[in-house]
């Protein structure tokens, strides 16, 4: 399935559109999604290191999704680099 991931903070530089779209196998968990995003960026935006994605969280509009969670179907997700508000 296609999963759309909105980009924030330093990860916005991965795509000027503000999001990427990944092909995600059914049943894939967030840890798998993280690996897919790292591969995608290695191909398309090698300037963004894997370390940044490893320190980033995935989230829906409601909550952070931890590594063991399944990627929800038909929901736009967001990838959140380390935060620095205030």
């Amino acid at each position, binding site marked *: 399935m296609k999963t759309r991931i*909105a980009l*924030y*903070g*330093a990860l*916005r530089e991965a795509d000027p559109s503000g999001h990427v779209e990944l092909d995600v196998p059914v049943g894939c968990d967030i840890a798998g999604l993280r690996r897919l995003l790292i591969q995608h960026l290695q191909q398309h935006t090698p300037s963004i290191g894997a370390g940044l994605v*490893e*320190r*980033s*969280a995935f*989230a*829906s*509009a*409601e*909550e*952070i999704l*931890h*590594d063991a969670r399944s990627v929800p179907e038909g929901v736009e997700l*967001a990838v*959140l*680099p*380390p*935060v*620095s*508000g*205030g």
Partner: protein
Amino acid sequence: MDGLHVAVVDIREAKLDIAAALDFVSDPRFGGIASFIGRVREHNLGRIVTGITYDLFEPLALNTFRAIGEKAREKVGEPLKLYIAHAKGDLGIGDPAVIVAAGTPHRDEAFRACRLAIEAVKHEAPIWKQEHYIDGDSAWSEGCSLCEEQREAERAQRHGEADHGHVR
């Protein structure tokens, strides 16, 4: 939660409003109002800053602010009114980036709620800061990971540093 106001304010539409925050947390029952304003300052880590762009994942930021309100109520008890607002967009030096205000019957609870809330906004809310420097360069600030596996390690390290700081 009654008595909780949370907001993300686009700088193109309005500035953060401390008077509105203080009004919101006022109550005839309350003797203490503690507040914090975070402003853009002109230096960071030795570089001259000309402005900061704040990026937020709004729906989750608002959810996080609400969760912070619940946590504050758990920690300091009732009654409590709490106001949390964060700016979004391109801010200049001196512009308020975040406002937290807490009203309670006595001052200790107000200070504790205010401090707890601003720490949580800084460490837990999906907000990113891009600093712009006088030489034209820009950089996204290093921050706190929201990824659970990373957080414990980073939090332990942060507390270690804070402890050293207090001992100096």
